[in-house]
Every structure is written in structure tokens, then in C-alpha cells.
């Protein structure tokens, strides 16, 4: 990208400059002996073309063109801003429906459903393991009836809905399709995403039900079904977010996520799907953490690396198959319970890094999330933060405004290389599934998490309010409390449903579900049949547990 002779001269001048800086270090010492990013990449005092002399313009390309370093669309936010999508859900379907309508009124442009843990693990609210968890971290969904209440008054052809559901993703998708049918909306009109990423559940998030093999089958069934019937649906959101939250570095986040992506593509190709048939609907989900430039570089590196993987490794021909489209959420683990208003600033910088990194949609965390689920006023402030970035500060007026920064380009390269090395190592171990089964990813993440904590405790890493600039007294706050009566009223509702539905229809639907689950036929039609008969999520997942078995976590420490 730069003239050879210019770079040669520059390298000599840079060496001189470095020498000069070192010679003055007695009088003007630097704050640290070594500067590093969160991924332990060295940070130099100054970047010039000399540090990126090997970078060719082909590695950057134009936005909307291979390898998409600068963005997946030609005009990016000059055309349309990212989708502002706040993850929300608590208590009953009725309560969450109110929060959704509030967010849409406030200018949010997409919905994102948080489900409670029993729903995510395929238990009805009356299951003994649901004790204490009903409606806590998300909304409770026992059956299609709850989905009807959740989306009451929200036309599904007018909104895009993201649903954070993994092991039972196929069941919840079936409910969404059935609900749309009731609203008179055809499946091909539906826009949205199911997370549907089981591999990171084993590694980092924990809401697995079935062992890897049948879980992968459910996923490829969804790919195949949607390729035929739901052209606008994102069939998976391959997630680095939780891997990062569990403590990984930025490089590990990209590496493990793309390695998981490779495993899904491999699985789908193996069952006979054409890569260009399903790959355009794959989407990703990343974390926006604190180290600002490293985060921007991470998003760009991820796009470039995935484009190369899809084109070179899988031979995908459709440019849409090469594109890494992603959702971003700011880093929950970076928020502090101390001086929680400071979290507003952390979130704003993180959100800005996601926008400068070219995200397609964004969730900004609320200031009180280290304490409880966010209150309505905190959620509003978080949404307003995105709106300030989108409408007031001009960063959306040109594409990839940081592209060409010597530092950023150098970091983008280093992250891509670091992630590619990890992926090569995972290939050697036999791929992502094997690397998870033998605990490789978990151990790497655990080690990074422990290092991070040690750095905080030694104050090598500063956390405002925790190890520097402490306040003697913390202000009390109004926190959102989930009504403890939710569990009882939900169990009551479930009983009424189970007594009032057509029992024969339920039994028939569950019987055919079992039959289909035992074969290699696509499971989606049988699931749609079962949810329409108002079989509950727990009943459906129990059938699948019997047929597929259950995953047992191997405890590593």
C-alpha cells in the first residue's frame, strides 16, 4: 500500500525516533514498562506506515466487497443505521409485552427476547428444577399460549425479532411460525434471528440439554427448513459474546467463534446441504469490551477472516456466504456494582467501538446490570446512548472512518493472525466439537479469566470504583424486582392450559414427534404440529430427551 522507498526511509527514521524516546526515559518515564491490549498484544508508542508495510489494499478492499474488512454493505450507515435492539424479558409474557411496546415507542427498531432459564433448558414452570428461576433472567414461555401473549398487538411482519434460545431453538422457532400463521403472516415474511448456537453453550453459557450430535442435527434441520421456507430468517447467531463474558481475550473470542462457525458449516455440508444455500443466513454475535481500538480491530479482523474461510476453505461462491454479519452487545462483565452510573460511560465507549467496527445491530447494557435486571429508566438511557451515536456525533457519515489508521490496521492484522493460529490448533485437535469435548477451549478461557482477575487484584488493571477512585458511601438505587408471585401464577396458567386443550391431539402430535426424532427426517414440521396442539415446551423437550439423551457437563478446574 505504501511506496517501498518511503517505507524503507521511514523504518530508519522510526528506529532513530525510538532511540531518542528511550534516551529520554529517565527524565520522561512512561506509565508502564510494557503496554498491551487485553489480548496481550504489544502496543507500541507510535504507529507509522512502517508497522503495516506488508498490508496490501486487497486485504482492505471496498466496503461491500471481499474480504469485507471495511464493512458488509457498500454505504453502511449512510444508507441505514444499525438495528437498535435491546435484549429484554422478565416475569410473565404480559409484562414483557409491555416492555417491548415501550421500547418500540421509544424508537427501538427491533425486538430481542430474553427467556428465563427453565425455558432455555426446556423445563415447564412447574418442574422441580425451575425452583426460584421462573421469570427471573427473562420471560417464561411454557407454550404457544405464552408466545401469543408475548407478541400481542405486535404484527410479526412489521418487526424483526431476535430470540436468545439455543437448545430448544427449534421448538421456539416452531412457536413463532405458528404464531405468525395465526396472525396471517407467512413464514417467508418473517424477519429475525434465533441464537441456536449450542457449541458455545457447552463452552461458556451453560444452557445445553442434549449431547452434541443430536444438537447439531437440530441445527442443520433448522438450516434446511429455513433455506426452503424462511429466506429472511437468520438461522443461527454464532456467538462470541458469552465466550468473552466467560473471560476470554478478544483474539480467543474471534478464534473460538469462527471455529464453532466452521463446525456448523461442516455439519450442514455433511448432511448434504449446498453451502451457498444456507451460509448467507448465518449471523454472528460479538462482545464490545473496554479496550477500544482492539475491539474495533477485532470486528474488522473477524469479517476478513470469515470471508477467507468461506471462500477458500468451503468454496462458497455467493458473496453473501462470505459476509460476516453480526450483532453486538456491550460487555456485561465490565460493569461494576460500585458507582453504577460510571457504567453509562463504559457502555457508551463500547457501543462506539461496535459502530466503528461496523455492527449490524446493537444492544447497549444498562447501568444497573451488575446489581439486577435493568429498570425502565436505565434501559431508556442505554437506548438513548445508541441514538446519540447514531444521530448526533457524525461517526455514521462515512464508511469505516478509522480504516487506514496505522495502529488500527496493525491491530486488525495481529488479531486476524492470532485467531487464525488458534483455528489451526483447533483443526489439529479435530475441530471445534472435539476441542470442546476435550476441554481445550474451556481451559484457555478459564486461564484468561483468572489472569484478568489477578490483574485487577494487583491493580495492574484499573477498574474505576473497584481498585481506584473508590467512594466511601454508595448511593442506594431503585432496582427492578421480579414479582415473586410470577412463578405461582404461571404454574396456575400452565395447569389451566393443560386441562383445557384437546388431549388426544396433544398425544398424537407428541407421538409423531417421537417417531420423527428417531429418524433423520427434518424435525421442524413435527415440532410445528406439536406446538399448535399446545403441547408444552417441557413436554416436547422431554420427548427429545428420551430420544436424544442428555448432555453431562465435564467439570474442569
Amino acid at each position, binding site marked *: 500500500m505504501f511506496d517501498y522507498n518511503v517505507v524503507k526511509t521511514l523504518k530508519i527514521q522510526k528506529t532513530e525516533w525510538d532511540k531518542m524516546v528511550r534516551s529520554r526515559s529517565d527524565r520522561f518515564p512512561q506509565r508502564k514498562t510494557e503496554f498491551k491490549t487485553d489480548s496481550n498484544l504489544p502496543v507500541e508508542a507510535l504507529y507509522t506506515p512502517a508497522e503495516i508495510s506488508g498490508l496490501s489494499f486487497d486485504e482492505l478492499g471496498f466496503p461491500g466487497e471481499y474480504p469485507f474488512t471495511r464493512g458488509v454493505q457498500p454505504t453502511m450507515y449512510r444508507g441505514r443505521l444499525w438495528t437498535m435492539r435491546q435484549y429484554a424479558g422478565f416475569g410473565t409474557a404480559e409484562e414483557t409485552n409491555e416492555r417491548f411496546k415501550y421500547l418500540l415507542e421509544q424508537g427501538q427498531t427491533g425486538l430481542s427476547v430474553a427467556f428465563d*432459564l*427453565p425455558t*432455555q*433448558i426446556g423445563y415447564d414452570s412447574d418442574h*422441580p*428444577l*425451575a*425452583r*426460584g*428461576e421462573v421469570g*427471573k*433472567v427473562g420471560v417464561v414461555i411454557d407454550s404457544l399460549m405464552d408466545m401469543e401473549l408475548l407478541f400481542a398487538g405486535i404484527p410479526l411482519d412489521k418487526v424483526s425479532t431476535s430470540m436468545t434460545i439455543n437448545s430448544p431453538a427449534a421448538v421456539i422457532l416452531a412457536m413463532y411460525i405458528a404464531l405468525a400463521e395465526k396472525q396471517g403472516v407467512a413464514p417467508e415474511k418473517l424477519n429475525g434471528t434465533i441464537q441456536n448456537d449450542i457449541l458455545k*453453550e457447552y463452552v*461458556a*453459557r*451453560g*444452557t445445553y440439554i442434549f449431547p452434541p450430535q443430536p444438537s447439531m442435527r437440530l441445527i442443520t434441520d433448522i438450516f434446511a427448513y429455513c433455506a426452503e421456507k424462511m429466506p429472511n430468517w437468520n438461522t443461527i447467531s454464532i456467538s462470541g459474546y458469552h465466550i468473552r*463474558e*466467560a*473471560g476470554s481475550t478478544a483474539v480467543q473470542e474471534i478464534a473460538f467463534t469462527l471455529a464453532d462457525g466452521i463446525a456448523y458449516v461442516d455439519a450442514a455440508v455433511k448432511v448434504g446441504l449446498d453451502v451457498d444455500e444456507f451460509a448467507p443466513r448465518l449471523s454472528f454475535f460479538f462482545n464490545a469490551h473496554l479496550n477500544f481500538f482492539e475491539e474495533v480491530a477485532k470486528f474488522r479482523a473477524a469479517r476478513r477472516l470469515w470471508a477467507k474461510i468461506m471462500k477458500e476453505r468451503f468454496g462458497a461462491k455467493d458473496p453473501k456466504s462470505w459476509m460476516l454479519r453480526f450483532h453486538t452487545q456491550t460487555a456485561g*462483565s465490565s460493569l*461494576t*456494582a*460500585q458507582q453504577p452510573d460510571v457504567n453509562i460511560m463504559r457502555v457508551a465507549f463500547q457501543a462506539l467501538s461496535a459502530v466503528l467496527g461496523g455492527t449490524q445491530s446493537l444492544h447497549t447494557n444498562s447501568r444497573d446490570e*451488575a*446489581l*439486577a*435486571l435493568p429498570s425502565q429508566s436505565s434501559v431508556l438511557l442505554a437506548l438513548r446512548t445508541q441514538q446519540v451515536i447514531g444521530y448526533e456525533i457524525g461517526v455514521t457519515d462515512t464508511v469505516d472512518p478509522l480504516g487506514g489508521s496505522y495502529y488500527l490496521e496493525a491491530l486488525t492484522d495481529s488479531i486476524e493472525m492470532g485467531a487464525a493460529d488458534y483455528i489451526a490448533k483447533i483443526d489439529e485437535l479435530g475441530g471445534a466439537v472435539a476441542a470442546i469435548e476435550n476441554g481445550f477451549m474451556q481451559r484457555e478461557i*478459564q486461564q484468561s*479469566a*483468572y489472569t484478568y*482477575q489477578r490483574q*485487577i*487484584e494487583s491493580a495492574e488493571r484499573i*477498574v474505576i*470504583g*473497584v481498585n481506584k477512585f473508590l467512594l466511601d458511601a454508595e448511593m*442506594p438505587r431503585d*432496582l427492578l424486582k*421480579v414479582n*415473586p408471585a410470577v412463578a405461582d401464577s404461571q404454574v396456575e396458567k400452565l395447569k389451566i392450559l393443560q386441562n383445557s386443550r384437546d388431549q388426544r391431539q396433544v398425544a398424537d402430535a407428541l407421538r409423531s414427534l417421537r417417531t420423527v426424532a428417531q429418524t433423520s427426517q427434518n424435525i421442524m414440521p413435527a415440532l410445528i404440529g406439536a406446538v399448535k396442539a399446545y403441547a408444552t415446551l417441557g413436554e416436547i423437550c422431554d420427548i427429545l430427551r428420551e430420544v436424544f439423551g442428555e448432555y453431562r*457437563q465435564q*467439570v474442569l*478446574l
Partner: protein
Amino acid sequence: MSEKRIRVLVAKAGLDGHDRGAKVIAQALRDAGMEVIYTGLRQTPEQIVEAAIQEDVQVVGLSSLSGAHMQLFPPVVQLLREQGAVDVLVIGGGVIPMEDIPYLKEAGLSEIFTPGTSTEDIAKYIKDRV
């Protein structure tokens, strides 16, 4: 062996999958010279108590970030006491609002450590009491 090492059970109560904190604390207590058993995810109060008694631990550390602490932590203390394990120190941590702490302490948890606590403080707390 000069002195018997302190034995700790670190347990994830309920369906919550956030185990970063539990694992970091388990590793830190191990580095502080204790013997640590980690249960893994999705433990019921009954399972936690069974493991605590089987492993003959002096300390049980409970973790929940899903808001289920009010329902899941007190039964652990109660079941331990019912089974005669009256001396076992039970501590807890996670996303726990300040206002819930008095209730948990009344239920027999000896301390609740909220986000931002240093692992050294937790190790010291245990060593001072066991």
C-alpha cells in the same frame, strides 16, 4: 502434612450458567492453599448438601447470578443443619442486591460477597473462621 488443609465446596446453585466467578474463586482458594471441589453447573440444594457431606468440607461457597438466591441459598443451610453439619460455613456470591443480604444472613449464610470483591478477601475471610 503439618496442618490439615481447609476443604471448600464451590457450588453453582440452580440453572444459572454464569460460572466465571465460581471458577475464578475456586482457583484462587486453591492457590491460597485450600482443597477445593467444584460441583459444576445446575445443582439443587439437595445435591449441594449431599456433596458437602460426602466431601466432608468445612466451607460451602454458593454462586448464583440469575436472581434465584433467595429461593436456593437458604435451603442449603437448612438441609446442612438438618443433617447435623452444624459447623459448615456457608457463604454466597453473585448478582445479589444489597437489600437481600439481611434475609440471607438471617437464614444462616455467614457472608455474601457481591461483585468487585477480591478473592484475597474471600480467602482471608475463610481462614479467619475455619
